[in-house]
C-alpha cells in the first residue's frame, strides 16, 4: 500500500514538472502555482506514505519511535531523500517566490521515483537488521539527507545561474547558492561525518573505515570544503560557484546511489 503511494508521488512530481515547464515559457504565475500545487500534493502523499512505513515498523518491531525510522533499504532511502529535497525546495520557493528551480527539482524527483518504481529493488518493508537498530540511524540519515537536499537545490540554482538571464537575477541566484551550500556543508559535516563516525565507533569499533561510502563521503566533503573556502575568500566568480554547486551535487549522487549500486562495503544495506 505505502509502496503504491510512493509511486503516485512520482507521477505528481512529473505533473508538477509539466506545470513548471509551461511556466518557463508563459511566465504566468498561475501556471507555476499549478506546479507548486502538484509538488505540494506529492510531498504530502510522500509524507503520508513515509508515516505509514514508520507506523508499520513501529508496530511490527515495538522498539519505539526513535528506533523505527524507515530508511532500511534503497527504496525507502531514495523516497525519503526525494521527500527532503521537495520540502526544502518548497520552503525555498515559498520564501523566494522564485519558481524557476522547480522544473529541475520536480524532474529530478519524478524521474528518480519512477525509475525506482520500474527497477527490481525491493519495495517491501524489511524489519531492521541489528546493524540498523541504533538511535544514530535517525540522526545520521536525517541530517545527511537534508544536507543532500540543500546541495540539490544549490545545484538547481547553479543551472539557472549558468543558463543566463539578467545580471541581477544571476547575482541573486549565486547568493542563494552560497546559502544552500553553506547550510548543506554544515549539516553534512555534522550529520554525515561526525554522527556517522560516532555511530561507526559504537557499532564497529572504528570512527572511520574507508569503506566505499565513507571514501566517497570524504570526496563529497572535500569538494564542498574547497567551495566554502573559496566563497569565504571571494576567490570564486559567480559562474565558478554555479559550476561548483553542480559538480558537487553530481558527486553527492554518486556517493548516495552510485556507491550502493556499484561498490560493496559496510554500508551495503541498499541492495538487501
Amino acid at each position: 500500500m505505502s509502496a503504491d503511494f510512493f509511486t503516485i508521488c512520482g507521477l505528481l512530481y512529473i505533473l508538477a514538472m509539466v506545470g513548471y515547464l509551461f511556466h518557463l515559457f508563459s511566465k504566468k504565475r498561475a501556471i507555476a502555482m499549478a506546479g507548486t500545487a502538484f509538488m505540494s500534493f506529492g510531498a504530502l502523499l510522500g509524507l503520508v506514505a513515509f508515516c505509514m512505513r514508520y507506523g508499520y515498523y513501529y508496530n511490527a518491531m515495538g522498539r519505539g519511535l526513535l528506533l523505527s525510522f524507515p530508511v532500511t533499504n534503497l527504496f525507502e532511502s531514495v523516497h525519503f531523500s526525494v521527500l527532503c529535497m521537495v520540502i526544502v525546495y518548497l520552503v525555498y520557493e515559498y520564501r523566494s517566490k522564485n519558481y524557476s528551480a522547480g522544473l529541475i527539482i520536480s524532474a529530478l524527483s519524478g524521474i528518480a521515483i519512477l525509475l525506482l518504481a520500474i527497477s527490481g529493488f525491493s519495495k517491501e518493508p524489511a524489519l531492521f537488521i541489528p546493524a540498523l537498530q541504533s538511535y544514530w540511524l535517525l540522526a545520521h540519515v536525517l541530517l545527511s539527507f537534508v544536507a543532500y537536499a540543500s546541495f540539490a537545490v544549490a545545484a538547481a540554482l547553479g543551472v539557472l545561474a549558468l543558463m543566463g538571464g539578467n545580471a541581477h537575477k544571476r547575482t541573486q541566484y549565486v547568493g542563494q547558492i552560497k546559502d544552500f551550500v553553506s547550510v548543506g556543508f554544515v549539516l553534512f559535516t555534522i550529520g554525515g561525518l561526525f554522527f556517522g563516525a560516532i555511530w561507526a565507533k559504537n557499532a564497529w569499533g572504528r570512527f572511520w573505515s574507508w569503506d566505499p561510502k565513507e571514501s566517497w563521503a570524504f570526496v563529497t566533503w572535500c569538494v564542498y570544503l574547497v567551495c566554502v573556502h573559496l566563497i569565504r575568500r571571494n576567490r570564486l566568480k559567480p559562474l565558478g560557484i554555479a559550476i561548483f554547486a553542480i559538480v558537487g551535487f553530481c558527486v553527492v549522487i554518486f556517493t548516495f546511489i552510485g556507491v550502493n549500486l556499484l561498490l560493496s562495503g559496510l554500508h551495503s544495506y541498499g541492495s538487501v
Partner: protein
Amino acid sequence: MHAGILAMLLSTAANRIWGLEGNIHLLEGMEQSAYLLPDDSEAELGFTVKCDDFNVEYYGDSNRVKAYTTLLSVDDGTGAVIAEIGVNQPFTYKGVTFYQQSYGFSPNNEGRLLFTAELNGEKSEHSVFFDEPVSLADGVSVEIVDFSPALALRPDGQAYNFSEDYMFNPSSLFLIDRQGERFYRWVSTRSADSGQIDEDFTLIFNDFKGVEYTTLAIAKKPFSAVIYISFVIMALGFIMIYVPRMRKTQ
C-alpha cells in the same frame, strides 16, 4: 575550526600508536586470552574472555535476524564480570571495548545436545552427545542420531537442511524406543509442536551447545574522548562562523 580538525587528526594518530585493534573468534563455551591482530598474528589481552552463551533472535517465523548477542564473561583473576554484547551494544573492560561482529555454525566433537523430555507429566533435562541413549520412565528411551542447523520442510513433508553456515533452525533427529516400538522424529527449536509425540510425551530440543562461534571486534582507543571534543569544537566553530552571517542577511 581548524584547531578542531588538528585535534581530531592528532588524537586519531595517537589512537593508532597507543591503542589496539583486533578480533576474537570464540566458540560457545570456549575461554581464551589471545586475540588476532589485523595482520592475523596473535597477541595477549591480559585477561581471559569466555563466551558463556550465544543467541540469535528472529522476527517471528521468518529467517530475518532481529538480534544476535554474546554473553561474555571476562576475568583478570580477581573475579569474572559478565556482560551481554550485541550489535550497537558494545562492552568495555579495562579500556578494551568488545563489539559484536559476526557469528556462525562451526561443527565440532565437543558440542553437547541439550533437550527436555516430558513424559507422563514428569520433566527431565538432558545434555548428551550423538548416539548416547537416555532412558526415560516406562520403558521409553531416546537418543539423538543426527543434527540439522537449518531444518525446513518441503511441501510434501520431507525435511531438508538449507544452511551449513548459520543455525537458523537447530533441529535434532531423535530415535525413540517405546517398549520396543522404534521410530524417528525431527525436533526443531523454532517449532514447538515438532516434539509433541503424543498427549503424554513431549520432546523439546533446546540447543546444540558449543558449535556456534561468535566474532568480536576489539578496540582500545585511549584518545577517543579528544575526538568527541574535537567534534564539539568544530560544531561550535560552525555556529560562530554562520550564525552571525545569518543574522546579517535577515
